[in-house]
């Protein structure tokens, strides 16, 4: 079975059909700007020595992350990975907490216990990733299993990279989801590289979305720089899952626009490829679309970018005020206490 290749979105009419009003469209833009802004600022903080450890960004993946997250319902759950900052932003994590996380401060979602994008706010329906890829994918399948057991109209979204697609966890999760037709959507962030490893050394087929057929569900390839097309495909897949139609595998094609992490200059990626994909920059592309199709005015844009700038400046300031964790808390919280389960999810 050949996968379906999604068409780009070209007109406002199509967007409306997909369920977005103008407010939503601007929100999407704002989320993409905030996402990139957080990572750009993070990079600077890293260079200033304010962020310990390593530093990763998802530059080039903003449309994909924000597009999918926008399509999720408020009660849906997801397991975003290290290129998916846009998911956290879209679901409402406050940027200052992300900077606090980066800097290992107590107000980061992990309180300094873990670093960089290894975080999530479970009150926003997100589960924190681990390094091991893609260990969270079968966890998302487990969320979907619970939704199915309880007959809830909720969906889980599992992200994974095209490199991580080689791991057994991908397979076990997808197979279980397929055989039980669970309400889960798999989103492959195919950014063409896994660290220094190009796709042709990672797998022997053209489209990873073709793997969906091996599990009995649908696959679709979407241009990951087209936020509206990503949104439309995610929305379709999520609503299909919600209606009992089973999983979908969405392969979102982008290019990882920076090195694997801050220490990596990506010498192994042909320069022309970077140039080619820079021309398709998802934020620039969407900005143009908004101006051409949604009458985004100069004032609107200035207000928006100004707002983002202020948000980030304030966020960094607030994060820097957050203290480093007290070493005496080192051993706290290895085990949960019964009271912790008295949350809305554990009823």
């Amino acid at each position, binding site marked *: 079975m050949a996968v379906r290749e999604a068409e780009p979105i070209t007109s406002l009419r199509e967007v409306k059909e997909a369920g977005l009003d103008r407010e939503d469209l601007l929100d999407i833009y704002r989320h993409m700007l905030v996402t990139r802004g957080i990572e750009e600022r993070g990079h600077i903080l890293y260079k200033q020595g304010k962020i310990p450890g390593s530093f990763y960004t998802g530059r080039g993946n903003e449309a994909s992350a924000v597009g999918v997250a926008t399509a999720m319902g408020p009660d849906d759950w997801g397991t975003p990975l290290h290129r998916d900052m846009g998911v956290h932003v879209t679901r409402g994590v406050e940027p200052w907490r992300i900077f606090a996380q980066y800097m290992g401060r107590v107000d980061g979602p*992990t309180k300094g216990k*873990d670093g960089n994008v*290894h975080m999530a706010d479970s009150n926003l329906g997100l589960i924190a990733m681990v390094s091991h890829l893609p260990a969270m994918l079968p966890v998302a*399948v487990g*969320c979907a299993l619970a939704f199915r057991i309880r007959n809830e109209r909720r969906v889980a979204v599992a992200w994974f990279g095209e490199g991580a697609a080689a791991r057994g966890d991908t397979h*076990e999760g997808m197979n279980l989801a397929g055989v039980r037709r669970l309400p889960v959507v798999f989103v492959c962030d195919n950014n063409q590289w896994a660290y220094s490893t190009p796709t042709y050394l990672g797998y022997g087929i053209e489209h990873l979305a073709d793997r969906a057929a091996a599990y009995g569900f649908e696959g679709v390839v979407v241009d990951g720089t087209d936020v509206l097309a990503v949104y439309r495909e995610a929305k379709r897949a999520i609503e299909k899952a919600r209606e009992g139609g089973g999983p979908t595998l969405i392969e979102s094609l982008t290019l990882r626009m920076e090195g694997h992490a801050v220490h990596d200059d990506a010498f192994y990626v042909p320069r022309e490829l970077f140039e080619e994909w820079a021309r398709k920059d998802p934020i620039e592309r969407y900005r143009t679309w908004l101006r051409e199709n949604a009458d985004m005015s100069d004032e609107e844009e200035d207000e928006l970018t100004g707002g983002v700038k202020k948000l980030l400046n304030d966020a960094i300031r607030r994060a820097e005020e957050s203290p480093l964790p007290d070493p005496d808390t080192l051993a706290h919280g290895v085990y949960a206490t019964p009271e912790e389960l008295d949350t809305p999810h554990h009823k």
Partner: protein
Amino acid sequence: MAEKTYLQAISDALRQEMRRDQRVFVIGEDVGVYGGAFKVTLGFQEEFGPWRVIDSPLSETAIVAGCTGAAIVGMRPVAEMQFADFVSCAWDHLTTVAAKQRYRAGTPVPIVVRLPSGGGFSGGPFHSQNPESSFAHIAGLKCVCPATPEDAKGLLIAAIEDPNPVLFFEHKHLYRRIKGEVPDERYTVPIGKARTHRAGEDVTVVTWGAMVYTADEAAKQLEADDVSVEIVDLRSVMPWDKGAVLESVRKTSKVLVLHEDTRTGGFGAEIAATIAEEAFEDLDAPIKRIAAPDTPVPFSPPLEKAFIPQVDDVAAGLRELAQNYMNCLDLALPSPRTQDA
């Protein structure tokens, strides 16, 4: 109150919890129509339906990771590994995700993984192992190893209630062999509290699981020599009841740590090391460990018998300790320590 096998106690406890709490479900290979390889969930699917008694694909990572996901959104999953040995296929998930999620991200992972473990039936290298030591080293997991039907029930319910990932080691050699009175009503046995299986004065045995019975037989042999043996059944190795162990050691001054898992790096080492650090001044003899030798579990009966600690091995170990004690008394003044110094 009724007399039940260890297996029946586990099965009944699980059924009781499932009746009581809609959030509890079981998932594993062949747990449905077949009732699981050991029939612990026999009849469950009829009662609870195919979405609370889930026949999974042959897929340990998907089973356990699936439980984690379900737990995070509010369920209380109980996974069955067909044999404890196969949990190696879910090692990464358990140690990387389940064990660390609470600490890192503040997300409790209340899952239970049931693990039919232990040897004694020529199950060979892959149907006989006792992997509790490996998991007990991983912060964030709990490891429970009941020895009696009553504890099996109370600890299983405690495990399901516990907001953390709990590995529940059920010793296969106890399943149908061991019977005992089990209260009908719901109750829990606290995880981390040892039980004095046998009170004694002269030597302490610290053990758990099927070895409790091996130790007990050996203790009976020692009665003839007028040596009184105290058996501390840990009931869980993570957390383990250090207080109870140290208390017994302070009383007897001699200790034998016994387990069925292999010796080097087995959890007995932790217990012995802790005693050596915290009760050193109370000891009258070296801390003895008896455990399986450092080999895979062999299949052929004479080899397997030589592998699993036997009553005679334990009795010999106890005699040696008691003996050593006598020697110590002789040497009391001046003590061997001062001679070295």
